[in-house]
């Protein structure tokens, strides 16, 4: 592995010089990332790349030589040889030896990547059309839980016909979220990946891997980031309409900053729980509801509530949103099987769900009862 790393470093230096003048955006090569895993993946990538280049030089070199010198216009007369057992054996055995040489480091890297034992903490990652939910299962921060969606500013700008100049967001366009995943540096973090609706894939290139999040199954992966920083990625498995708008942002914080963040989260969760127990005014519910609606519902049902029928029905004037509160709560909480309507039971907290339901029942000309957080709590 040492020699491999050295080779990779040399090649990086070489590529670096070769393309030093290139603008950063004209990126050519894989990112080396910030973990030991991503570095060994990068090393493997560079080795197999150079092996391919070497074979390419030999094969294409022979072809080009032949095309230049063995042409009829140069008076070449065709030889008539057409087989050679020793050549056939040679070019069967040599590639096998190269492949065995490749398989050895690949195997050891793979085994290391799949070893999720001895983790310091565990985070459950749930893919939901089209956001990620993070539950801190054990270790420091256990109990923290939140949903991470595309940042509202980006979400607005990416709509067809928004007319927004998306370049103002820079390289983080579509890779910015409302609530990033925060992990401590220097700790082995184990991820449990699953999904609520369709298959997603959780990928941050700087961590060196992606893993599918599959409904009904739990996959494992791990990382250890030593440098504090912000690392961005996206969902990598086609998961429906807004697959391209499902970013991942990981913020690695030094342990003491991480502890501070956990304390903040716990405080916010308590405030949130307390707010669910009090009576809300209609204005409060409507204001909060519009915000929640735009993050969670507008992608399909549209900001004007008209939806995109028949796949995504209109909420404005719908019998459910203007009818019985219990049926409306049940639909949003449990989703609708066989359609893209997801279950929001674990996505929205009591106050948020009450607010968004109230908003749906009273916006765009709808006029139905308001729903208090207490009703949601009771319905769970």
């Amino acid at each position: 592995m040492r020699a491999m790393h050295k080779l990779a470093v040399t090649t990086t230096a070489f590529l670096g010089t070769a393309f030093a003048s290139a603008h950063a955006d004209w990126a050519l090569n894989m990112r080396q990332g910030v973990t030991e895993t991503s570095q060994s993946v990068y090393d493997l990538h560079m080795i197999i790349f150079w092996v391919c280049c070497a074979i390419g030089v030999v094969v294409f070199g022979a072809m080009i030589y032949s095309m230049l010198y063995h042409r009829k216009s140069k008076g070449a007369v065709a030889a008539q040889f057409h087989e050679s057992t020793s050549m056939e054996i040679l070019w069967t055995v040599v590639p096998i030896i190269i492949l065995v040489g490749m398989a050895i480091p690949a195997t050891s890297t793979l085994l290391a990547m799949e070893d999720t034992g001895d983790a310091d903490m565990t985070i459950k990652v749930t893919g939901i059309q089209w956001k990620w939910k993070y539950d801190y299962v054990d270790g420091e921060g256990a109990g923290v839980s939140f949903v991470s969606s595309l940042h509202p500013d980006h979400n607005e700008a990416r709509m067809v016909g928004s007319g927004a100049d998306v370049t103002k967001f820079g390289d983080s366009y579509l890779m910015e979220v409302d609530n990033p995943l925060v992990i401590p540096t220097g700790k082995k973090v184990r991820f449990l990946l699953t999904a609520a609706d369709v298959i997603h894939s959780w990928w941050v290139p700087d961590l060196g891997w992606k893993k599918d999040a599959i409904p009904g199954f739990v996959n494992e992966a791990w990382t250890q980031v030593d440098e504090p920083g912000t690392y961005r990625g996206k969902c990598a498995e086609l998961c429906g309409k807004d697959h391209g708008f499902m970013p991942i942002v990981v913020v690695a914080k030094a342990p003491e900053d991480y502890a501070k963040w956990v304390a903040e989260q716990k405080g916010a969760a308590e405030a949130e729980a307390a707010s669910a127990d009090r009576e809300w005014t209609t204005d409060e519910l409507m204001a909060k509801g519009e915000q929640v609606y735009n993050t969670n519902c507008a992608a399909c049902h549209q900001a004007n509530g008209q939806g995109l029928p028949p796949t995504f029905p209109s909420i404005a004037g719908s019998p459910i949103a203007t009818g019985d509160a219990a049926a409306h709560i049940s639909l949003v909480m449990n989703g609708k099987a066989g359609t893209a309507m997801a279950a929001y039971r674990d996505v929205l907290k009591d106050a948020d769900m009450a607010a968004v339901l109230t908003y749906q029942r009273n916006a765009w000309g709808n006029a139905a009862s308001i729903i208090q957080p207490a009703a949601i709590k009771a319905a769970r």
Partner: protein
Amino acid sequence: MSTATATHDDHHDHGPAKGLMRWVTTTNHKDIGTLYLLFALVMFFVGGAMAMVIRAELFQPGMQLVDPQFFNSMTTVHALVMIFGAVMPAFTGLANWLIPMMIGAPDMALPRMNNFSFWILPFAFSLLLSTFFMAGGGPAGGWTLYPPLSLQMGDGFPFLIFAIHLAGISSIMGSINVVVTILNMRPPGMTLMKMPLFVWTWLITAYLLIATMPVLAGAVTMLLTDKFAGTSFFSAAGGGDPVMFQHIFWFFGHPEVYILILPAFGIVSAIVPTFARKPLFGYSSMVYATASIAFLSFIVWAHHMFTVGMPVVGELFFMYATMMIAVPTGVKVFNWVSTMWKGSMTFETPMLFAIGFIIMFTIGGFSGLMLAIAPADFQYHDTYFVVAHFHYVLVTGAVYSIMAAAYYWLPKWTGNMYDEKLGKMHFWISTISVNVLFFPQHFLGLAGMPRRIPDYSIQFTDWNMISSIGGFVFGFSQLMFAYMVYKTIKGGEKATDQVWEGADGLEWTLSSPPPYHSFTDAPEIK
């Protein structure tokens, strides 16, 4: 020439019916071959138009032209149309035209089934394309149809499934016909190991099709019952497993990849010796390599799904098995290079496309080898690196071989030479633009751009623009190919029976164009 005239007179008696009914009721291998090839050409432009929509939306960041759902249906249907509508029917068309002429037979063994297997296809693809006009739109869950996502499709879903069934039935019937023809209609003296490589590769391809198409049919039928009959094959909530679909799909899908490339190997193995004026190097090793690739294709499927969370032993097995494929594929490339070596080469358009194939298919092979390394695949998987990889093997691989075949055999089929200047121009414009189109996609994937996204972060802008420009040039330059085909059918300099100085094989002993019933008497095999 006297024999040619004699056979020409002869086919007035058994010649084709006149008008439209000739094409509807034909049982002639050449007519059906022509139908297949023209159908494939039309589908090539239909799928190509979808690719143009994709590249136009990706020309710059931000959403300009289409909504994300429609974008997803473009990527999905582009793939389905190109694979099942363009490349596979084109190869079947070539098989129909060439296999009887190459083995000295009068026609295919099962002519009525031949007619039926073609005429299913226009219906299958009308069904598929009609889903765009149904509630919920066209399929948008990817051509791989992974559940649960594919089950979210609207009213068009059963039409999609039925279209796949029909295309599959057509392929199976075509394959049975190929197998029966090759095994039963060779003249005395033509042993299996004397067959041209195109016939060999198609024989093996036909077996792959017969073995895997029913697997696909089973998988999509299970999707259908999951959607409508309350089964839970792929739903964890009902005790099923969404990953099981992927295993079944790729058990079909990986052999399918070789179905799309083995006939190409056969075409290139016919063209390179002709223009090198030297026999194919290592004929028997080519046959064994093809058979090895076909065998290996059945035990590597899960390399398409390294990230689903298989047991590590499974990942290791599929990584090793996949790496092994490089060996027989390498043997083929080495044999082609050795065939060129010390030849007396000329570079007419078919040879240019064949050499383009060897070089660019090998580049696709290299990225394939990189993708085989499971830990590295965890980074490459589902990115534009994969998109670049399979377009190198499918466009500059399979499609280039079909172009090469068209230039190589059109003079034989029509009796007219194509326009060499136009052909060379088509080759060079295509080759430059296709590399501008697909090579930068390697960089995009490595830099972290996932595939199947309609919009992207600003740092991916530059290469996407370059790629789109290449895409537009490549797309529109294919109109030159359509024009070339039209012009050659219409007329042109008369082709000799031999057509190419170095050509060898039974098809070149027939007149150009060949008689309606290729070989009425079994030819003598030396």
